[in-house]
C-alpha cells in the first residue's frame, strides 16, 4: 500500500502549507461578542476533522473516508460498530423495550433518514451556519432538505399553535444563561428518530439545546425529554470549529430518492 504522503517532497510540503492556511483553526482566540455583550455565534461551523484530503502528484484523488485502509466498506462497518459501542443510550420505559428492540433489529427501512425523510432535531446536530441578531438566531443546515430554524431570543413564549403542531424540526425559543445559549424546542411529530438504532420518541418530546462559544470553537449538546423515557437523555456533546475559509459557502439542496432498499438482502445487517 502506497502512502500518498510518501510521494510528496519539499514542494508538496510548501503547497500543503498553503492549503493548511484554509484549514479551520482551533487556536485560542477571544470569543467574538455582539454589541449587547452576548457571544456572537455567527459564521460557518464545521466538524474539527472535516478536512480529509490526500495529495497525489500523479493527479489521482484519494477520498479519505477515515475507515481502516481508507476503505469505504470498512468506514461503514466501523461507524456502525463505534456507534453501537457508545454507552450513552436513551433509557426507555420497559413497555417500549420490545418496540425499540424490534426496530433496532428489523427497522432498517423504517429509519426516516434511510428513506429520505429529515433527521430532525436533535439528530441533525449543530447547524452549519448561524446568523445572529440581537433578537434572534437563524440556524442553517447543509444537506438534502437544506433545513433552517429561526430561534427568537426576545423573551417571547411558544405560540399555542407551535405547541399544538407536529413537525420534524419543532419550534425553538432561546434564552441566555450567562454566555450559554439555551434553546427550548417543542411541537415535534412522532416520526423522527433520535438515532439509527430504533430510538423513537413521542410527540410529547421537548428538546433543550445548550450552546457555548469559546474562541473559534462551538460546543453543542442536546437533552431529550420525553414521556417514553425513564429519564431525560443527553446526547454526546458535539464540537464545531469556525470555517476560516473566507470563501466558504453551502452547496445547494439535493433531491433525495432512496434506491437502496430494493437491494437489501438482509435487513439485520447494519454498517
Amino acid at each position: 500500500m502506497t502512502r500518498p504522503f510518501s510521494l510528496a517532497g519539499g514542494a508538496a510540503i510548501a503547497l500543503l502549507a498553503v492549503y493548511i492556511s484554509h484549514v479551520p483553526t482551533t487556536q485560542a482566540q477571544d470569543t467574538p461578542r455582539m454589541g449587547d455583550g452576548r457571544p456572537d455565534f455567527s459564521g460557518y461551523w464545521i466538524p474539527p476533522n472535516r478536512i480529509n484530503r490526500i495529495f497525489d502528484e500523479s493527479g489521482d484523488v484519494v477520498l479519505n473516508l477515515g475507515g481502516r485502509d481508507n476503505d469505504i466498506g470498512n468506514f461503514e462497518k466501523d461507524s456502525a460498530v463505534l456507534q453501537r459501542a457508545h454507552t450513552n443510550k436513551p433509557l426507555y420505559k420497559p413497555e417500549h423495550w420490545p418496540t425499540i428492540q424490534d426496530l433496532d433489529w428489523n427497522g432498517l427501512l423504517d429509519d426516516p433518514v434511510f428513506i429520505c425523510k429529515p433527521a430532525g432535531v436533535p439528530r441533525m446536530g449543530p447547524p452549519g451556519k448561524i446568523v445572529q441578531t440581537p433578537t434572534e438566531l437563524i440556524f442553517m443546515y447543509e444537506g438534502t432538505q437544506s433545513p433552517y430554524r429561526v430561534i427568537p431570543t426576545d423573551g417571547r413564549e411558544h405560540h399555542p399553535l407551535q405547541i399544538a403542531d407536529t413537525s420534524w424540526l419543532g419550534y425553538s425559543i432561546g434564552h441566555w444563561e450567562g454566555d450559554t445559549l439555551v434553546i427550548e424546542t417543542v411541537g415535534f411529530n412522532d416520526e423522527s428518530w433520535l438515532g439509527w438504532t430504533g430510538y423513537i420518541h413521542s410527540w410529547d418530546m421537548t428538546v433543550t439545546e445548550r450552546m457555548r462559544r469559546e474562541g473559534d470553537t462551538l460546543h453543542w449538546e442536546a437533552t431529550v425529554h420525553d414521556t417514553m423515557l425513564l429519564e431525560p437523555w443527553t446526547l454526546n456533546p458535539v464540537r464545531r470549529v469556525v470555517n476560516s475559509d473566507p470563501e466558504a459557502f453551502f452547496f445547494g439542496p439535493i433531491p433525495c430518492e432512496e434506491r437502496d432498499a430494493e437491494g437489501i438482502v438482509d435487513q439485520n445487517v447494519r454498517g
Partner: protein
Amino acid sequence: MKTLLRPSVFVCISIILGASVAAAHHAVQAQFDVNDVQTFTGTMTEVELINPHPYFHLDVETPGGEVVNWSIESVALNALRRMGLLKQLQVGLDYTVEYNPARNGERVGLMTAITLPNGNRLLMRSQE
C-alpha cells in the same frame, strides 16, 4: 475546478462525513459484498445526482459481446461536488469502475474507484 485533477497538481479535498447518518443510511454490508472488488469499463448512459447517494449507469460489453447496463452507487454527492468533479462525469464518455458487487446478484455496485477520461483515478480506498 478541472485543474484539481491535472497531473502534477496536488489536490486538496474537503468532505463532510456525518458518520452517524452515513452508517445509518447505508447498511452497505446488507446490500453489497464489501470483501469483493470487481472492475469493468463502460460508457456512461445516465447520471443521477441525488441523495442519499448518486447513481451512475453505464453500458458494459460482456465477453460474449452483449451490452448490459450497470448501476453504480457512489459516495455522497457533496463529496463529489467539493472536488469539482460533477462535470467530469458525463453521459457518453468511457469510465473504468471498480466496485463492490450487489449481494442480490443484480447489476448494481458500490463504487470504490473510478478512472476518469483524463486518466486520473478517484479512489474511495487506499492506493495499492
